[in-house]
């Protein structure tokens, strides 16, 4: 299909540019883009659960679990990075399973509220379990390593982040295009109908949710060894909301949506990262997107093309007047 071929070309071109970035950009850009890659993993890993119609406002909790698990294993037991990363992701998935099992039997809003409370619970545990996590004094973390080699330079860490992001994106893309992805979509679109056709709703939702938790754990583990300092309040409700915002601003109708949203918002908010203005910016963009561009940024090119070929009677999408 031509559109698929075009998407593949764009993908290859972007990856080539990202591989070339350290040769042209300075340390600042390397650092910035590695952070963007983490946000992309977080945003994309929320997508399966959103596709099933579950509003998860607690994704940062699983990132937090991945980050602390990996950091503590590496710091206290000297576990190599590739193992600690996997352990962090697995623990995030196991906790996700334990929380998801009771709450995913519930519909939308109950689930959303449980996840909000869960973020707070995890943040509190990280803050008050001082002997283990050092609480709000913060935890320093060793540098990442790979196969025994320490990845001390920012450039090597950048490539590690790039590779992790690409692996996660490919896995999630393959899943979305598989039969499983179709089932998830059917649950999100018409839960009762899917159930009547014999889809095991609860288990499919649980799988989507747990998988998302696993990849959030991956992002958290890398984040821990990249930033090298963990501070519980950073994993609060605000970060969880941001991950959700990436998905909605980017657009939920296409796999590229969360990726576009994460890249766009992370880069544009860079001048005021860490200040209240970052959140103000995110919130305003979110409100404007929901009110005026409900399909998200990925629908923008189509809308613009539609405007150019504008005819008085129809746009790119015209709902029947009687609907």
């Amino acid at each position, binding site marked *: 299909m031509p559109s698929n071929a075009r998407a593949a070309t764009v993908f290859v071109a972007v990856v080539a540019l990202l591989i070339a970035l350290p040769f042209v950009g300075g340390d600042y850009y390397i650092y910035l883009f590695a952070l963007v890659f983490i946000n992309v993993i977080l945003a994309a890993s929320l997508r399966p659960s959103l596709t099933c119609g579950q509003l998860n406002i607690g994704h940062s909790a699983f990132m937090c679990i991945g980050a602390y698990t990996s950091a503590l294993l590496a710091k206290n037991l000297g576990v190599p990075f590739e193992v600690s990363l996997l352990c962090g992701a697995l623990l995030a998935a196991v906790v996700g399973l334990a929380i998801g099992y009771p709450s995913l039997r519930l519909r*939308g809003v109950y689930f959303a509220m449980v996840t909000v*409370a869960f973020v*707070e*619970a995890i943040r509190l545990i990280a803050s008050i379990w001082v002997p283990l996590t050092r609480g709000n004094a913060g935890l320093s973390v060793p540098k990442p390593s790979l196969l025994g080699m320490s990845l001390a330079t920012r450039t090597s860490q950048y490539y590690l982040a790039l590779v992790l992001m690409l692996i996660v994106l490919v896995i999630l893309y393959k899943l979305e295009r598989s039969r499983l992805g179709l089932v998830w979509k059917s649950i999100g679109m018409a839960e009762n109908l899917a159930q009547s056709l014999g889809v095991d709703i609860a288990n499919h939702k649980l799988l989507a949710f747990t998988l998302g938790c696993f990849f959030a754990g991956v992002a958290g583990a890398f984040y821990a060894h990249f930033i090298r300092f963990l501070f519980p309040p950073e994993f609060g409700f605000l970060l969880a909301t941001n991950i959700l*915002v990436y998905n909605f601003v980017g657009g939920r109708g296409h796999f590229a949506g969360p990726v576009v949203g994460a890249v766009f918002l992370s880069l544009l908010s860079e001048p005021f990262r860490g200040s209240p203005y970052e959140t103000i910016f*995110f919130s305003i963009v979110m409100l404007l997107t929901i009110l005026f561009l409900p399909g998200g940024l990925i629908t923008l090119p189509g809308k613009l093309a539609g405007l150019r070929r504008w005819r008085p009677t129809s746009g790119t999408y015209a709902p029947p007047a009687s609907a």
Partner: protein
Amino acid sequence: MTAALLVQSAVIGLSIGSIYILMALGLTLMFGMMHIINFAHGAVYMLGAFAIYYVYFQWGAPYFAAFVLAMLLLGAFGYLVERSIYRPIKGGVEPTLVALLALTTLLQAAGYPVFGTLDKHVPPVFSGTRNVLGVMISVERLMIIPIAGALVVGLYLFINKTRMGAAMRAIEQDKEAAALQGVNVNVINGLAFAVGFALAAAAGALMAPIFKLDPMMGEQPLLKAFIIIILGGLGSIPGAILGGLILGLIDSIVATALGAEPAFLLSFVFIILLLLWRPTGLFGHAL
């Protein structure tokens, strides 16, 4: 734990519980009618407290005037939110929830440049202590109970005895049928937003002289209110009142014995266990 300490935590739990009830009532009312959860409720609580800080403390207005003004202003803000966010999205639950989340983070973050980054304090409104069952309790905390109680009774009368309240109950039962009977659904939804916001503002205004004020102060009461309405069942007003009392008592007694953080963790674990046993809460109707 001595008996005196137990009585003291019980009375304080009752006053904290009254605040939680005010928060939870608005949430459950709005959920019953529109099937949305107002995430901005905590931010409205915060604005209610800051309204007291400016109008009562800085500008010297009488406390009750400031209290009523906070409720009116934030009630009007609630109506505006219905008009400009809820209504244009036309009932899509997920986008509405995310828009309300964005409104929450916007109000919280904007609080820092607007109100300043230093914690604010409001001086006590009611001074002195009173003997309750042999324990001295500050009048400040005691006064919360009758004021919140009056608001709850007022809400009950409003919903059950007025035409607008009947319209709200009609929408809760069946929105289309209510519209066919001539209920202006948009206006009544806006009214529910206004009532919910005004109650959250009242909760914040009552707590202003007791806790320190900062833009994130609404997060804890919001989470408590979530736990209450999950406990009592979404959409159930008696459930919200009972849930608020239970959580207020647990909170105060466990917090006195173990500390505030373990109390929150315990209530969270309690909720997860409750959901395993009864997925719709104690009084909730099937979803």
